[in-house]
């Protein structure tokens, strides 16, 4: 059972396996020390079981993409799961048909060898398998048609924009697209001559004969082309976006083992970079893509730029121009830590100026004894919105809560804005000073009005006391009956701040509070899909004018239902939105303080 046309395919498989294994070993060896410790600790556990399930669900069924858009999910699933089944069913078919064993390529080119080799026997379910293989081929081809259609008109598949691919990706895609039609034609030609195959290829073969094609001449050439397409695709795979097919499985397993992005780029980052399929789902949601016409900084392009190491400098520029609103990483079907990787690139660019001792002056802030009280941390931005901090003080007093307003006089930044920009050492210095002051004061809990500080305190500080955002705190006071409010009929549209919603997953607490003081409206894009107000501190490239353009989108979305008030839970969002139009913008603390009994 051999024919010369199988050589390109076999060569492709050997290259694919060789290069992939070499790459993976190199990446695993490049893991950070701490990552290696985590792997060693968790490798002998049952965590591979959920990993297998997740790999099946995401790698083959593409569950998250399906949740994003049904038809898009079908497209990805038919190509991945369809092809997977073609390989598996083909292998089973070959095993059943060759009791004496067979070379591995026979499963792929089964229809070619079946009529020609005596070692292939006719088994009882052979027609069933032939028809099943044809049905699977239709399944894959339907996905292929959708993929081609998406390139022309992507809207029906739920995408406004598709990714711009580079040359090698496009060649690989072309070879992938050729594989299945060529298989159909090759099997059709064989079916026309030997009468084997299922319902589809028999029909195609008959059609080819009816069109006057001499199948005897074309058959072998078609099999050669099919094998060439497979060989080309497999050879290119490790160097293109199709590397994501295998890499995603590894990434899922490593993530289940407990690995996360570290401060600096390591082997894990390389897995994440290659696990990106460049599907482009991250593009549509990006708040600076449409309003500002910035088309090269989105997650997919940033990863692409990091992978092409020679354009590192450009990656730095691209990494800096992002609001870090978190919309893309929420929507990423592979759940790549886009923010973590972006921070790594930023940190790389700032290494030379990231000094470890910049804030000696903070020694002038002396610890205060507030034993047993609640600490209130307004945050830098709240100093520009005194109405929020005053409302919070009124709420504390009304609830009979003894509190200490930590940063009333002079405020020390929480360190997150620095960390977001990649100043790792400087951010750590601020965190250390704040932690010292908090620990020495003896407060029992920390309440903050700024979602940036909240995210920083909960995720980056390791405080021994609970931390609450004021929306959570007020919701708790209302629930416990320590605070009573008079409901009103004002219609309120709530703006989810990026850092509070997508950043910390707090969507319910502010809504509970608002329902107590007014009528909460729904907006078209809320919760995970909330639009950035534009002022988010993540971006150091765009100007104030551009920030205003981003804000306009968010504002339009909020005032669509003509609310009496726009509510938000972030001093920065409040400032940004207030400049957007005439509708009054209030923080939930203000709304509650106003309606207190």
């Amino acid at each position, binding site marked *: 059972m051999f024919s010369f046309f199988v050589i390109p395919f076999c060569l492709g498989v050997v290259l694919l396996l060789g290069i992939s294994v070499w790459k993976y070993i190199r990446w695993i060896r490049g893991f950070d020390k701490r990552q290696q410790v985590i792997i060693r600790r968790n490798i002998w556990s049952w965590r591979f079981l959920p990993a297998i399930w997740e790999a099946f669900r995401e790698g083959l069924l593409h569950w998250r993409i399906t949740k994003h858009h049904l038809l898009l999910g079908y497209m990805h699933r038919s190509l991945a799961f369809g092809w997977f089944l073609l390989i598996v069913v083909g292998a089973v078919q070959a095993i059943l048909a060759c009791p004496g064993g067979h070379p591995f390529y026979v499963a792929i080119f089964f229809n070619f060898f079946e009529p020609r080799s005596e070692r292939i026997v006719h088994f009882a379910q052979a027609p069933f398998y032939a028809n099943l293989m044809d049905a699977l081929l239709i399944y894959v081809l339907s996905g292929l048609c959708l993929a081609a259609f998406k390139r022309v008109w992507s809207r029906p598949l739920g995408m406004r924009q598709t990714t711009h691919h580079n040359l090698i990706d496009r060649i690989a895609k072309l070879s992938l697209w050729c594989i299945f039609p060529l298989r159909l034609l090759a099997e059709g030609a064989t079916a026309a001559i030997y009468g084997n195959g299922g319902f589809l290829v028999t029909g195609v073969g008959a059609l080819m004969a009816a069109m006057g094609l001499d199948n005897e001449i074309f058959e072998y050439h078609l099999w050669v082309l099919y094998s060439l397409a497979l060989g080309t695709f497999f050879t290119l795979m490790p160097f293109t976006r199709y590397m994501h097919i295998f890499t995603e499985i590894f990434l899922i397993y490593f993530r289940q083992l407990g690995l996360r992005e570290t401060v600096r780029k390591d082997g894990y980052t390389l897995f994440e970079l290659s696990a990106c399929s460049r599907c482009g789902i991250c593009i549509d949601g990006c708040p600076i893509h449409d309003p500002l016409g910035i088309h090269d900084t989105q997650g997919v392009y940033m990863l692409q730029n990091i992978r092409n190491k020679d354009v590192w400098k450009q990656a730095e520029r691209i990494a800096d121009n992002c609001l870090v609103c978190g919309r893309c990483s929420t929507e990423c079907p592979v759940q790549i830590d886009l923010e973590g990787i972006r921070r790594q690139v930023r940190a790389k660019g700032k290494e030379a*100026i990231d000094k470890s001792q910049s804030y000696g002056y903070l020694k002038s802030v002396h610890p205060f004894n507030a034993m047993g009280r609640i600490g209130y941390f307004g945050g830098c931005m709240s100093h520009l919105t005194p109405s929020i901090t005053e409302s919070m003080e009124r709420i504390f007093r009304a609830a009979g809560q003894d509190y200490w307003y930590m940063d009333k006089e002079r405020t020390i930044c929480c360190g997150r804005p620095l960390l977001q920009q990649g100043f790792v050492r400087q951010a750590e210095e601020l965190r250390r000073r704040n932690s010292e002051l908090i620990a020495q004061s003896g407060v029992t809990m920390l309440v903050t009005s700024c979602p940036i500080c909240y995210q920083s305190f909960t995720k980056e500080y390791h405080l021994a006391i609970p931390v609450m955002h004021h929306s959570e705190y007020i919701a708790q006071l209302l629930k416990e009956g320590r605070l009573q409010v008079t409901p009103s009929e004002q219609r309120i549209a709530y703006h989810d701040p990026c850092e509070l919603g997508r950043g910390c997953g707090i969507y319910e607490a502010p809504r509970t509070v608002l329902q107590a003081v007014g009528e909460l409206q729904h907006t078209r894009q809320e919760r995970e899909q909330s639009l950035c107000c534009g002022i988010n501190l993540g971006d150091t490239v765009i*100007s104030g004018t551009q920030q205003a353009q981003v804000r306009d989108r968010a504002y339009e979305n909020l005032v669509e239902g003509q609310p009496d008030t726009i509510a938000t839970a972030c001093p920065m969002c409040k400032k940004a939105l207030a400049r957007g139009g005439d509708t009054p913008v209030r923080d939930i603390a203000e709304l509650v303080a106003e309606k207190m009994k």
Partner: protein
Amino acid sequence: MNKFGFQISRPRSINMDLSDDGRREQLLEEVPSYRLCIGCGGCTATCSAGQFTNFNIRRSHTALACNQTEGLAAQLDSCMLCGKCMLVCPRGVNLRGLIIRMRQMLGRV
């Protein structure tokens, strides 16, 4: 030195050889919105680091343009990037970007 509340004024002169337009031009290129600055000083008034030190954003970028870089890098290091300056800027200047680019510019020298 005793402070008498007055001093003998020396003739004020500007050393034009020191001024470096190249740096200002480069800053303008990297942070185009810097062109909009009217020097109102709102950024400096609200600055978080300014509450603790004599860090002065308005003076810093003028100083860099005039090549008066002595001690400037250390001053810029005290910025906490909290972003209050951008929120109060009436002209929408990308001040955090400006500070980072200035630090990078001085760091390269």
